[in-house]
């Protein structure tokens, strides 16, 4: 079993969440190292997205603590967690549909504004300089994902795959240190998936960030993740290098069912 660095970027300690009688995630211990690309996989309903919602503050854990860069973010509001340096994408795309591609990304620059509402109202030299600097950075980000040609188009007019890429751009614009991608390749064909995975590896290196990737399709994550954690019914059943995880009988059982049924 590979262990992350001594000083993990994100660490969850016995994180549990219950919705009424249902325990969606149970006693999860997960560590994400710095500049690490880790995959979180599991069958449908295993609790992968719930883990995302716990880390990003959409849900508050019933038990356990979440540490980011050594400090507890348990109980913090979602927008504060983003300000600390965790950005995410959504499984069911959540773009700002009435805004253009350009404005979607620009909205995420909100966090790094020097000026406040007075700048926006006075519209002086400082305001325009800042808006211009932001615009340049937005275009740079869009270019990485080949979306700059759509910059003036409404976000909802993009194709499904482009909308997913735009979500990643928007998350990157928040300048995170940890990027959470929730099934970024859903609905893409296999060549698009391969391209996207290469791109994820590229941005990880370029921006020096850690990436936690949720994926339903095991083949996709096997290729790029350094480490994989497997979730089933809210419990982590395996963790390790992709080849280790692939051979793990518990994982095979979770995905394919018990071996006995195949023997018959």
């Amino acid at each position, binding site marked *: 079993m590979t262990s992350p660095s001594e000083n993990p970027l994100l660490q969850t300690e016995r994180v549990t969440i219950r919705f009424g009688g249902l325990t969606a995630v149970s006693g999860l211990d997960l560590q994400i190292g710095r500049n690490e690309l880790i995959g979180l996989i599991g069958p449908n309903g295993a609790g992968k997205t719930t883990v995302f919602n716990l880390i*990003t*503050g*959409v849900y508050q854990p019933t038990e356990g603590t979440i540490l980011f860069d050594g400090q507890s973010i348990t109980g913090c*509001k*979602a*927008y504060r967690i*983003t*300000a600390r340096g965790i*950005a*995410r994408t*959504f499984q069911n795309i*959540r*773009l*700002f*549909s*009435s*805004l*253009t591609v*350009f*404005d979607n990304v*620009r*909205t*995420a*620059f*909100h*966090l790094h*504004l020097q*000026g*406040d*509402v007075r*700048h*926006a*109202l006075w*519209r002086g030299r400082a*305001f*325009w300089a*800042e*808006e*211009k600097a*932001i*615009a*340049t950075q937005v*275009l740079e980000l869009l270019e990485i994902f080949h979306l700059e040609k759509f*910059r*003036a188009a409404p976000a909802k007019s993009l194709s499904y795959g482009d909308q997913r890429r735009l979500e990643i751009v*928007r*998350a990157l614009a*928040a300048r995170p240190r940890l990027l959470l991608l929730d099934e970024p390749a859903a609905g893409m064909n296999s060549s698009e998936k391969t391209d996207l995975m290469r791109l994820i590896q590229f941005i990880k290196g370029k921006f020096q960030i850690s990436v936690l990737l949720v994926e339903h399709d095991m083949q996709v994550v096997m290729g790029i993740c350094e480490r994989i954690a497997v979730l089933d019914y809210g419990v982590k059943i395996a963790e390790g290098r992709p080849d280790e995880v692939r051979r793990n009988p518990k994982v095979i059982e979770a995905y394919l069912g018990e071996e006995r049924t195949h023997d018959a």
Partner: protein
Amino acid sequence: MTFKHAKLLLLAALLLSLLISLFAGRINSYVLFVLYAIGINIILAVSLNLINGYTGQFSLGHAGFMAVGGYTAAVITNQFGDLNAFAAGALFFGALLAGGLLAAVTGLLVGLPTLRLRGDYLAIVTLGFGEIIRVIFQNMNAVGAARGLSVMHGSTNFFWTFGTAAVTIYVVTALVHSTYGRGFIAVRDDEVAAEAMGINTTKYKVTAFVVGAFFAGMAGGLYAHSIQFLTPSGFNFMQSIAIVVMVILGGMGNTPGVIIAAILLTLLPEGLRWLAGIPSLPGIAKAYPFAWVGNTRMIIYSLLLIGLMLTRPQGLFTWKRRPILPA
């Protein structure tokens, strides 16, 4: 629209309204009254558009904020007798600001508890709030209760009305055309995603309510000093609905459209009134074909609104908003 010369435009609008107000003596007083109503409705509709249109928080309590501002300003100016033109102007401006500020405080008080509510629930709570405000004034003897309150100073003029309207338009437009203010639209489009992008959605919603209420309060003060008589029933639920209709008709989150809708919806009932009133003009035959308009004026108005909503549910005016790109 890059909105780059906005400050110049605002200055020009202020100067123009000042210039027109100097020649207001030559304008028919009925026409002036309708013009003031147009200006006041523009302020109300554009400020409500920040709450309902851009931020997506469906509020039905705008008349409540208007009442707070109107009564506050009227009570202040009523303390003073005859003043010279300059002092009267300064007093009026101060009273308008005070009315706006008190309305903004009310907006804060309404905004805070209602933030957990969305859609229909928020609409019902704001509607209830508007009615509470009205009932409070209806039972407040110091402001005449149900008998109404006479406003001694007819201070509203072209400059104050359209100057305030210009400032309202400037503030709302400047807010939403900035990286800071695009947060309002983000909150409307997807609250969860907005939070995930680091936007404090609570702060944005309260800001929208406070700014919207402030200008509604100013509009209330202008209304009070134009009509010079306030009754609580003037700020009832129907008044809130009338402002909401302007926003919906103009297109939610479309300031130019909302301005045009405010103008049209102020003129429409007045135009119908004029149509009905033609027989009383000298020289018109008794067999006037539009006499029926008199009794059915408001029915025609309602039918027109229904027709518009059926044919243009997205608002009368929609045009593409071009993004601001780096030069």
